[in-house]
């Protein structure tokens, strides 16, 4: 029974699609989409820039320092190549002659930007962003200086540390928390949750009032308790194999950072797969209809659960946390997402174990109910 149950799982095209293929296809699509963002950001070539300073003061000096730091030859952050000009008119002539792409004119309290007539979107975005950010931060620091010089110094230091206009691919898919990792992890969780289909399938196999196949089981001398345990184990193993493959693809093909603690990751995977299957058993027992109808209802429920956990809009769990926190606690996709996110990005062992405890607790409850009902030998109606 065990052998054929496993064969059945691996031959189930519908199940494999939702659990295995669909998440990988989605990840591949996301990889290409996000990869191009980083390629684009990393492909910004340093732009020939002229800096004109009008007057002397702290404001002008600060801006000069910033532009010089972003023009440092050989630096990863280099955005500009500084060109000389005698005056603004000379600079404008060079701009017209395409000898320069950007002109910054810094005066006391203001930064003006001049671009070529047929300027690129990149040069406009970068120049505009730098000028605006400087103006806003300077104003903030100047205001703070009047109120609290110590706090103003802190802002100055932070401003220096946080001046980052590009994000390297390594950072984005590596150790730095970012929304893109969330989408990949969330997709993995979605695939795991679709393993609930195996739980529904288990109900179909074992309840004589749900399927004719189950009638054969019930009439046979095989012990129901044993059958339930075997059926569960025969579904957990394919589940673990599928997640293991997905994790390897995520790590080695898409370069997703999965944390350093593989023991905890294994704990998460085992708990999550068992949770998903036991969740499917409960869905299978609660929903009405034949196995397919029960499966369709569960698919809808899982999709809603995954959507509300932030698969499409990563801000959703935050919104629920603010206005309706209990929802995040009872949404299975969010519970699984948070555990994985805390493990791989949040670096919070305590938070991770809290989520794992919740997952294991729910799994035990679901399994206890499932086994109690499924091992029944007789039914009220067939």
């Amino acid at each position: 029974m065990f052998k054929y149950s496993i064969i059945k799982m691996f031959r189930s095209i519908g199940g494999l699609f939702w659990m295995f293929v669909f998440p990988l296809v989605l990840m591949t699509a996301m990889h290409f989409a996000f990869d191009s963002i980083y390629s684009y950001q990393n492909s910004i070539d340093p732009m020939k820039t002229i800096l004109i300073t009008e007057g002397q003061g702290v404001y002008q000096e600060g801006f000069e320092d910033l532009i010089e730091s972003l023009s440092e030859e050989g630096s990863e952050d280099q955005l500009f190549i500084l060109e000389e000009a005698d005056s603004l008119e000379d600079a404008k002539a060079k701009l017209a002659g395409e000898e320069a792409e950007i002109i910054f004119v810094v005066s006391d309290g203001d930064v003006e930007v001049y671009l070529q007539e047929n300027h690129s979107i990149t040069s406009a975005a970068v120049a505009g962003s730098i000028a605006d950010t400087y103006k806003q931060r300077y104003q903030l620091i100047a205001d703070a200086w009047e109120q609290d010089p110590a706090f103003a110094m802190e802002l100055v230091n932070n401003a220096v540390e946080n001046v980052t206009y590009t994000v390297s691919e390594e950072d984005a898919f590596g150790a730095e928390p970012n929304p893109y990792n969330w989408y990949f992890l969330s997709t993995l969780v979605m695939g795991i949750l679709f393993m609930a289909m195996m739980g529904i399938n288990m109900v179909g196999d074992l309840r004589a009032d749900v399927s004719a196949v189950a009638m054969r089981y019930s009439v046979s001398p095989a012990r129901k308790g044993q059958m339930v345990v075997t059926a569960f184990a025969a579904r957990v193993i394919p589940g673990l194999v599928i997640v293991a493959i997905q994790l390897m693809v995520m790590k080695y093909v898409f370069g997703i950072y999965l944390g350093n603690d593989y023991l905890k990751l294994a704990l998460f995977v085992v708990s999550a797969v068992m949770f998903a299957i036991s969740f499917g058993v409960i869905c299978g027992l609660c929903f009405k209809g034949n196995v397919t109808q029960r499966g369709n209802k569960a698919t809808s429920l899982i999709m809603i659960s995954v959507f509300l956990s932030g698969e499409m809009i990563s801000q959703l769990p935050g919104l629920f946390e603010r206005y309706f926190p209990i929802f995040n606690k009872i949404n299975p996709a969010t519970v699984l997402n948070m555990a994985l996110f805390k493990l791989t990005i949040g670096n919070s062992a305590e938070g991770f174990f809290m989520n794992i405890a919740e997952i294991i607790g729910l799994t035990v409850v679901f399994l206890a109910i499932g086994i109690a009902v499924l091992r029944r030998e007789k039914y009220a109606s067939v």
Partner: protein
Amino acid sequence: MAEILKVKGLVKRYKELIAIDHLDMSIREGEIFGLLGPNGSGKSTTINCILSLLEYDKGEIEIFGKPMSPKAYEIKRQIGIVPQDVAVYDALTVYENIDFFCGLYIKDKETRKKYVQEAIDFVALNDFVKFKPGKLSGGLKRRLNIACGIAHKPKLVFFDEPTVAVDPQSRNKILEGIEQLRQNGATIIYTSHYMEEVEQLCDRILIIDKGHTIAEGTVDELKGMIKKSEIITIEVAGLDDETLSMVREVKNVYSVSYENNQLKVEAGSGKHNVIDIVNLLQDKGYKMKKIFSEQPTLNDVFLELTGKQLRDE
């Protein structure tokens, strides 16, 4: 012959509805026992109660002389079931399906391999062992359904409407197979609403309707329970009223009609009904072209006992 299955006073209720009402059954070793009734008459419910799949409200069920219960594993070991719906896995091949279900009964691999092959031979699916059920025709699927139910060589086999939606050729093969199983020593309980099959196959028949026993006995015994036993149709021209009156006076005749040169006579049980009527017409100088005699069917039995048709489709 030993009594294999005994059901006494079985009652099953679904809230207000009484699905089975004090049903008694006794099945002897080696016989094919037919459970006949229209759709919804309680045939499947009876089978499910016997197999301990359903809780019942009252009654006793004994199989092989022992009380049947969900935990009567030794009894279950000797039972096979061929459900009404084709109960196989689409993801497994023909061979794997039979092996899988046989494995619920037979743990020894070598024995199981032998039994599975014998089951495949029995239902003649040798050319399809590597096919998945989705690739099989309706008739072949039914044969696979049977193979999965009988591979472990049960002593008592339940066939729950195994020929529903099956073409005539496959139906005949299935019926031949069931007869073969009996010859191999199995006792068969066969439920159907196809009276011809039951009449052809079964040694004894229990007719039920709305959970009630309508009649029980052999085919001849059941037919003997009704007044009408024969319909005689004779093509003859120009019959006068006097002759028709004389036909009505013939022994066992209880209904006579004459239209479009067709004389139709309904007669009760009697060996010489046709001869008596033909002799009478010859004596009166009539020339007869065609003579038919139809025996009553189980549908006639059901119709006369319940006032409605057995087949509702």
